[in-house]
């Protein structure tokens, strides 16, 4: 009998229609845990990192973890792993809801999709029964309509992960949406799904997940639930205000990127912060599978100009369509969020690409002729919302923005206007005002990203301890620790927000009780280190080098202009050599043979 892991991988080849069930490699499962880690190991073994990500040679893996579907708290996450459409790195895009646990209930550790269908299809899974079905009549539908249509012909409780028009048209930052509102958002995993003509995966599962040591598991669950629910952040703060509560604190410390990172302070930020969202837009909070935090926001906009209902915005989205575009109209910001979800495109890269376009427009490098007559200075809320639709449908000027800010800025001769690391847009924390997060952006294996090394927690929020946000000392070790912990956590099926109450000790205890494989805290952190290095090796083979561990010149050379962090720039060069050393990498950022042996990667 298998515990935690189901021991079965579902493999679907869309080119020839072959459907296979294979045993999970349990030696790899122990080393790489599941979800992000185990799927990345399989992808690394099975594809050439140099392939075109939108070719049939790419594979798309839907991967929950061994804790997914158990009653451990906040275990609703799964990862979508493939070579990224946006920037060619190894992608592991993480989403919540109930889709991941449902895959486990159907009996699978993961679903590997390979090849490409000749015409649109969707995958229907009911436990052992697996079908590739025609999706011609679904092609062109948005995310909610697709979800409803599939549920109508399969099961009203089916968990559906699908693409919208953005994925069909291969917008390079198209996402995969599950249960309508939860997004595997970053890296363009939806474009990869679109390239395979795969509109959706719908799942119903009825099988139990076996636990190796029920007594130890119950004890570990009670301990974890207590720590999360009694923590002021996990227990009350996130449920009441959502992630958008961060707007005011980041603005308060002068690190809220503003107008495409020209500044780090936006005077009217409170208009789109979590307090405003809660007071004027929130209908109810919403949680993912087994979650006791419920940070999700079900919201409504009544202003007829931007009327709608949906979920969000999260902090990143409110910032992107807010201060980064120079906009403080919460109606417009929320509407832009709804449209991204319906079209199936990533809110962060969408918003920051529009911010980049606004920057190029104000500098005269993009003209009205280029935009089709659309005036887009910073602050133009109405045209920002119009651009979201144009991007998702690849219409007019939106077709250029659908390639992301790196290609857009390069097209107009000014790549320095793209606020990206490894060609993926940086999120909502200014690395000039918060030094550690800058080192993380530069070294993240998927490019500009905050969730794989969230040092904002100690650097700004003081959780679990406070460090000076402006200091560089100690940051390389802090970044490495957060990156390793997150890599291991992502591989269990846990939500990152659980770590506001629990850490590696509790996660290792849960994992051990569920799987029956003993993980000490050290084993757990070492698994994270192993996964981080595995991803690094993929990126190096894909053509990236240490020279790509960089931040934009604007971040390195142009100080923040106003606010509490005025005058600050990133000191990445002071931190990077020590980071490489702590990682066991050479001076060019390549893992040494000794390090790879230590991690059982060779």
């Amino acid at each position, binding site marked *: 009998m298998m515990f935690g892991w189901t021991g079965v991988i579902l493999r679907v080849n869309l080119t020839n229609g072959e459907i296979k069930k294979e045993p999970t490699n349990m030696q790899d499962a122990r080393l790489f845990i599941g979800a992000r880690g185990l799927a990345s190991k399989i992808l690394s073994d099975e594809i050439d990192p140099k392939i075109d990500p939108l070719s049939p040679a790419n594979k798309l893996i839907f991967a929950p973890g061994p804790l997914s579907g158990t009653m451990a708290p906040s275990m609703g996450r799964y990862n979508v792993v493939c070579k990224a459409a946006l920037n060619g790195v190894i992608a592991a895009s993480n989403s919540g809801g109930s889709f991941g646990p449902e895959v486990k209930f159907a009996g699978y550790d993961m679903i590997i999709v390979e090849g490409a269908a000749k015409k649109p299809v969707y995958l229907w899974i009911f436990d052992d029964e697996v079908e590739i079905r025609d999706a011609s009549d679904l092609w062109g539908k948005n995310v909610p309509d697709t979800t409803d249509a599939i549920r109508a012909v399969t099961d009203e409780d089916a968990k559906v992960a699908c693409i919208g028009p953005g994925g069909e048209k291969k917008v390079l930052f198209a996402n995969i949406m599950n249960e309508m509102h939860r997004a595997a958002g970053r890296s363009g995993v939806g474009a990869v799904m679109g390239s395979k003509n795969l509109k959706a995966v719908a799942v119903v599962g009825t099988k139990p997940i076996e636990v190796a040591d029920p007594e130890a598991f119950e004890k570990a669950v009670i301990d974890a639930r207590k720590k999360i629910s009694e923590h002021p952040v996990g227990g009350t703060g996130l449920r009441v*205000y959502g992630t958008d509560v*961060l707007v005011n*604190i980041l603005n308060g410390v002068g690190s809220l990127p503003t107008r495409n990172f020209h500044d780090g302070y936006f005077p009217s930020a409170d208009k789109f912060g979590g307090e405003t969202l809660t007071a004027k837009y929130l209908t109810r909070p919403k949680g993912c599978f087994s979650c006791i935090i419920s940070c999700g926001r079900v919201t409504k906009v009544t202003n007829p100009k931007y009327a709608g209902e949906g979920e969000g915005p999260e902090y990143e989205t409110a910032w992107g369509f807010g201060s980064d575009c120079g906009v403080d109209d919460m109606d417009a910001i929320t509407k832009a969020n709804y449209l991204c979800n319906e079209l199936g495109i990533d809110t962060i890269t969408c918003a920051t690409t529009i911010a980049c376009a606004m920057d190029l427009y104000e500098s005269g490098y993009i003209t009205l002729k280029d935009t089709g007559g659309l005036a887009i200075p910073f602050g133009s809320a109405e045209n920002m919302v119009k651009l979201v639709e144009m991007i998702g449908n690849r219409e007019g000027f939106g077709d250029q923005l659908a390639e992301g800010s790196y290609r857009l800025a390069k097209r107009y001769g000014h790549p320095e206007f793209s606020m990206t690391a490894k060609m993926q847009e940086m999120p909502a924390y200014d690395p000039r005002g918060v030094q550690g997060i800058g080192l993380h952006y530069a070294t993240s294996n998927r490019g500009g990203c905050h969730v794989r090394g969230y040092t904002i*927690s100690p650097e700004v929020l003081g*959780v679990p301890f406070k460090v000076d946000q402006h200091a560089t000392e100690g940051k390389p070790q802090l970044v490495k620790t957060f990156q390793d912990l997150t890599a291991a956590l992502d591989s269990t099926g846990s939500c990152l*927000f659980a770590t*506001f109450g629990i850490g590696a000790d509790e996660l290792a205890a849960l994992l051990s009780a569920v799987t029956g494989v003993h993980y000490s805290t050290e084993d757990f952190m070492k698994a994270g280190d192993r996964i981080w290095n595995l991803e690094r090796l993929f990126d190096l083979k894909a053509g990236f080098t240490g020279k790509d561990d960089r931040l934009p010149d604007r971040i390195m050379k142009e100080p923040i202009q106003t*606010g509490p962090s005025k005058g600050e720039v990133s000191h990445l060069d002071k931190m990077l050599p020590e980071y490489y050393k702590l990682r066991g990498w050479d001076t060019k950022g390549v893992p040494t043979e000794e390090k790879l042996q230590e991690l059982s990667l060779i």
Partner: protein
Amino acid sequence: MVIKYYATLRDITRTKEETWQSPTPTLQDLLNALCNKYGSTFQKWVSCENGGYGCLSIFLINGQDYRSLNGLQTQLNQTDIISIFPPIAGG
């Protein structure tokens, strides 16, 4: 000086910000005075389990975290802007 409140502290104080003119030479003096004014609910959010202030709540003096200044003994001036956040997080 101006005191700005965020998240649940806005509900407790029923204001986003207020002008403060009473003499409070240090941050600790100010927090003592605010706890007297707003009572135990306010105190619960800004104080530590074992007494004192801070821990998971955040106090900014002109945008600088009080812990990078002189902690609770940081001297306050009439022109200062004090921002008070209860424990918050996100991502």
